[in-house]
């Protein structure tokens, strides 16, 4: 019981917690942000934070006449050890997640469940009707049958904090098929109640010619063989669609999308993890922020990918487009290819039409199996550029590396290579006539290789 000088509490642990919380939040909302990666790279910042915190402690202690806290007390040391463990755990968890993407750890207060199922009488509906299916929680499976009937099977599961509530609530859930101006709306009644969560899964068979719209909150959607136009939106859950006769559009905010064989245009928007689109007769458009990988194969018309950091247009992709947060790989494009990206390593092979690449902070590798017939333009900022052409290629080249060199396997009297003030240049022609090749990078080597 003295009023002598007390030891202050250090602000280090508080600052550390704030920093950590902010990092976790950013990591959560920005899929490109890899926490342990950043933490590892910037771990010296921890030392700086420590020093600054101690400095502030010192000044504050002097001003108020209290004793300054020790350099690192027991509590802070324990906190640091804890953080190392948590980050290590998260790194391991993310590795496991990469291997088994379906694994999910759900935190839920409602752990008592009760379920029932309804089979609604089959209903004959006119050809070309628009069928809409809605559930705020639950999986939806739709496939097209040969008849003219709309068949709906629903199973409802209520989760509540105790069993009798769950039973009571699930009994109130009904399934309705309402007539709308152009078709039918299938939806549950009394699904959204307080103090319980009810999922209603649908198993629906529609006539082949129907156009189908599906909205689900939390749940997976699976659609097959629908001939009419298809629209799927999901807040959280995976979407899988195959063999569709018309346009397909999918919107989601969390989950994976897999679309196989569509005879119309395919449109994927939103946020999520993996996107896989294979076999599209029309255009394939992917718009949004997907964690990746994004794979697109075999698109008849134009493939368009747009996100904050990349904008790609590929006409008639017969090979593969694979894209993740770090890299873009493209092979076999029948028409023109336009790529504008940031911070990605790019690998492109065999583009029949014009090729335009604009990138920053990444390496660019371009290869051709046949001599190029259309112009090639590559602009990079801080990164090397590698162009590999068959030895019989003819072209007119201008390659400039502002702070780097240009190396070429092609040597021809009309090719002039120069280097002044660190700027490497290669200008000239190979063969009598050929497409123009324009390469510019600010830092990095440009390699023009001959393939054997």
């Amino acid at each position, binding site marked *: *019981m003295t009023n002598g000088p007390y030891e*202050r509490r250090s602000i280090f642990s*508080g600052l550390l*917690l*704030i920093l950590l*919380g902010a990092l976790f939040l950013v990591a959560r909302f920005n899929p490109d942000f890899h926490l342990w990666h950043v933490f590892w790279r910037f771990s010296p910042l921890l030392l700086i934070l420590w020093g600054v915190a101690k400095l502030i*402690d010192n000044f504050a202690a002097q001003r108020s006449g209290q004793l300054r806290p020790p350099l690192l007390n027991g509590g802070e040391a324990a906190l640091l050890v804890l953080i190392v463990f948590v980050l290590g755990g998260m790194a391991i968890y993310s590795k496991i997640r990469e291997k088994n993407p379906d694994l999910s750890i759900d935190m839920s207060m409602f752990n008592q469940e009760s379920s029932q199922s309804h089979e609604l009488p089959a209903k004959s509906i006119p050809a070309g009707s628009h069928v809409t299916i809605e559930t705020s929680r639950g999986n939806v499976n739709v496939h097209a049958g040969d008849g003219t009937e709309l068949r709906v099977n629903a199973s409802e599961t209520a989760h509540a904090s105790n069993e009798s509530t769950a039973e009571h609530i699930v009994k109130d859930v009904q399934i309705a098929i309402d007539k709308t101006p152009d078709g039918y709306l299938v939806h549950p009644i009394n699904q959204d109640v307080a103090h319980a969560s009810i999922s209603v899964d649908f198993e629906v068979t529609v006539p082949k010619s129907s156009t189908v719209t599906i909205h689900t909150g939390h749940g997976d959607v699976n659609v097959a063989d629908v001939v009419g136009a298809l629209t799927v939106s999901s807040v959280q859950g995976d979407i899988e669609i195959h063999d569709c006769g018309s346009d397909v559009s999918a919107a989601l905010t969390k989950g994976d999308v897999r679309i196989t064989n569509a005879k119309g245009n395919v449109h994927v928007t939103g946020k999520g993890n993996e996107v896989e689109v294979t076999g599209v007769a029309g255009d394939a458009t992917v718009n949004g922020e997907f964690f990746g990988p994004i794979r697109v194969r075999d698109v008849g018309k134009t493939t368009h990918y747009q996100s904050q950091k990349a904008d790609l247009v590929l006409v008639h992709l017969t090979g593969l487009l694979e894209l993740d947060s770090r890299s873009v790989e493209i092979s076999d494009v029948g028409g023109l290819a336009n790529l504008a990206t940031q911070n990605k390593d790019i690998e492109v092979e065999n583009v029949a039409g014009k090729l335009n690449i604009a990138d920053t902070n990444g390496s660019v590798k371009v290869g051709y199996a046949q001599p190029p017939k259309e112009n090639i333009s590559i602009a990079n900022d801080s990164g090397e550029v590698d162009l590999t052409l068959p030895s019989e290629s003819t072209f007119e080249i201008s390659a400039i590396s502002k702070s780097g060199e240009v190396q070429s396997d092609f040597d021809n009297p009309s090719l002039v290579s120069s280097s002044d003030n660190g700027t490497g240049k290669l200008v000239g022609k190979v063969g009598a006539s050929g497409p123009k090749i324009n390469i510019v990078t600010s830092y990095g080597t440009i390699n023009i290789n001959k393939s054997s």
Partner: protein
Amino acid sequence: MTDAIRTHCGCAYCKVRGLMGPVMIITIGVLFLAAEYSRYSFADLWPIILIVAGIILVAQSFASKDGHIGS
């Protein structure tokens, strides 16, 4: 001996320190509510708990211990 005395200590440091428990509980409650009624899940929002705890710790270190009773 200290428990009874500590609860009576009215210095700024002990006041802020006493805030920690209730504020944490309130934060967690608010987050669970927000997770139910907004498009963000608890898994999105939990780092806010760290930030709030950090803010209180910092406030604690700036609070004066003048008039502190007890050990």
